[in-house]
């Protein structure tokens, strides 16, 4: 793999790495034997092994995407597809190997868990090394497991939904994930149960040229509610790593799911993720999707509204600095009457970075009374930075309402002058304008994450002005 320019190093705070403590890995490259080895190691049932092998074939057959960012430097033979960091999975942090625990301490995970989370999952390279859920939530019947454990412990529920929302045939990277998936979260919220505090998963890549392929499946039963939050970071290496997750969500009648992501991968990570939810009658699915890190992100969280009155809400921000391309957006697919969707996208391009909003609003047949609203705002810092908006609308039933607004603005001299005239430095003033710009996003985050988000943006903005 060619060595990409190391970008944004001075601003990226999570670029440290541990020595390789893994107990097993499959070596570089992808062959049927690698897939077999992963499945065997995990002691999976035959159907899953066959699913993986079939997915590998699909992956090998499918062409690379013909849209989005530049993937020409991504060499699949350079990647390690499975790396087992430890032979044990802790339910207390004491059970986690010291070195790995220290990493998560540095990332603030145990502290956040103590303060405001109902459950935490921590994945390190290919496996979840720590997993815990608060007793009271467990007592309510909420299942929060790593996905491998769920396959063992809830085989029927698992098989009923797994791969049904995002089948391997969906796209090349969904097929890749289906072949080599490991870790991720499984959540089941029973009928009428509301999880009032968020469940969180944290994904950490440690090894160089690593591929992380977690698989997440969330089922929110009728009248239930859950808020799931994920964060991700990685060390900075000169070679690229690959993160390619699949997330499948089922939101049943009158249920509600909010999925919040703060993606802060190191600037040498390809982040190619498929996230999709199905929303049934009067269900609400919300994607709150923050993209700050990575070299290239291609991610378009989707909601298929299959039940009458279903609602989709996608709030997406993308910040692209030097050497970064955020190709992000959303898909709202209206397949039932009186469904509503809102997509709000906020993109910031600076220091030569590039953002692309890529969105789809689809109205199927017989979806009368449905409404969609798309709002894309872009803030550009300098002439070398780039922003594109690519919205696609498909309308098969004209008894619907569609609104689309897009703005592109530069940080204005008048705004900067105004703020500076009150005593703010150029950097403080710029930050304030940026924070104001993404305020619709941060105000949707739980307070602790909003604080973290502000801090990340602050770090991103260091040195961004002359």
């Amino acid at each position: 793999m060619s060595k990409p320019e190391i970008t944004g190093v001075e601003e990226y705070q999570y670029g440290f790495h541990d020595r390789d403590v893994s107990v097993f890995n499959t070596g570089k490259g992808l062959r049927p034997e690698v897939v077999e080895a992963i499945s065997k190691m995990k002691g999976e049932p035959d159907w899953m092994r066959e699913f993986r092998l079939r997915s590998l074939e699909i992956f090998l057959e499918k062409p690379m995407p013909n849209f989005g960012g530049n993937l020409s430097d991504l060499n699949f033979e350079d990647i390690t597809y499975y790396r087992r960091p430890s032979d044990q999975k802790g339910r207390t942090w004491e059970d986690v190997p010291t070195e790995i625990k220290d990493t998560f301490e540095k990332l603030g995970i145990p502290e956040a868990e103590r303060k405001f989370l109902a459950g935490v999952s921590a994945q390190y390279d290919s496996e979840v090394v720590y997993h815990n859920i608060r007793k009271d939530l467990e007592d309510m019947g909420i299942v929060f497991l790593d996905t491998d454990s769920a396959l063992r412990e809830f085989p029927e529920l698992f098989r009923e939904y797994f791969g049904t929302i995002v089948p391997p045939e969906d796209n090349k990277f969904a097929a890749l994930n289906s072949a080599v998936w490991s870790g991720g979260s499984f959540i089941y919220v029973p009928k009428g149960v509301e999880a009032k505090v968020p469940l969180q998963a944290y994904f950490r890549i440690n090894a160089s040229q690593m591929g992380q392929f977690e698989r997440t499946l969330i089922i929110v039963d009728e009248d239930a509610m859950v808020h799931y939050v994920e964060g991700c970071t990685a060390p900075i290496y000169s070679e690229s790593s690959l993160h390619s997750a699949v997330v499948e969500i089922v939101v049943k009648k009158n249920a509600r799911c909010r999925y919040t992501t703060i993606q802060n991968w190191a600037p040498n990570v390809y982040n190619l993720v498929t996230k999709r939810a199905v929303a049934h009658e009067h269900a609400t699915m919300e994607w709150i999707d923050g993209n700050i890190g990575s070299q290239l992100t291609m991610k378009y969280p989707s909601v298929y509204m299959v039940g009458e009155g279903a609602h989709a809400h996608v709030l997406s921000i993308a910040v692209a600095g030097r050497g970064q391309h955020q190709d992000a957006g959303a898909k709202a697919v209206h397949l039932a009457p009186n469904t509503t969707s809102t997509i709000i996208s906020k993109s910031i391009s600076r220091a030569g970075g590039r953002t692309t909003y890529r969105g789809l609003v689809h109205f199927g047949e017989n979806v009368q009374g449905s409404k969609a609203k798309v709002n894309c705002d872009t803030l550009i810092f300098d002439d070398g930075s780039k922003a594109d908006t690519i919205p696609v609308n498909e309308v098969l039933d004209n008894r619907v309402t569609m609104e689309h607004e897009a703005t592109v603005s530069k940080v204005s001299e008048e705004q900067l002058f105004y703020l500076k005239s009150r005593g703010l430095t150029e950097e403080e003033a710029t930050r304030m304008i940026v924070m104001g710009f993404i305020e619709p996003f941060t105000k949707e985050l739980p307070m602790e994450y909003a604080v973290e988000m502000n801090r990340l943006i602050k770090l991103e903005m260091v040195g961004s002005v002359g």
Partner: protein
Amino acid sequence: MARPVLEIRGLRVGVEGREIVKGLDLTVRGGEVHAIMGPNGTGKSTFASALMGHPAYEVLGGSAMLDGKDLLEMAVDERARAGLFLAMQYPAEIAGVSNANFLRTALNARRGEDDPMPVLKFHKELQQKMRSLAIDPVFAERYVNEGFSGGEKKRNEILQMSVLGPRIAVLDEIDSGLDIDAVKVVAQGVNEMLSENFGVLIITHYQRILNFIKPTNVHVMMQGRIVRSAGPELAEELEARGYEWLRDALGIEEPLSQEA
């Protein structure tokens, strides 16, 4: 602290290569209220913006010192932290940033990192100041100037001045677009701040606001220069006789631009 003093000597300012302010001399001390009056297009606002350091204006010559420190050597934010305040004619809008957040950030920028204003104390003082300026308390959480009426923006400028407590404030057409009640409220806000430690420079087209803020000195600016300076009686004379009277008396040829 010593009484503030703003000293401007021979200040010349250009915009896009054209000289607008052509040698301006002025001294404003704490406790004084100066008014610069004059017809539109004579360089009053250009002077105010250049004094604050707006990047669109180029200082071609002269000096501007605040308390003996060279303002023209400072960046915009340094001028602000040195104690200069400009209430703008057209304040910018900042989406997504609440007035309260903005004001507290600005206040703390002046106070330095080791001495931030306690949050509760700040909000208490802010609410009190908003009451005295007849500003609805909800404006603390509204985004800076976004969707504000003209009068609300002007009152918001005075609120900022009141919170930040500058040594010298320049009020650029603070009275334009205000009805008489709003002018009174703004004037009261300024009057409450007046002391030996605070000097004001009011830039205005009209005499009206000077009925409520008593000036100590009145200057008339035409064609980029101060053409006459006197006491408050000059404002009254201008009100009665118009700028044309002074223009003709001084033998200035250029026509006066008309404004409603």
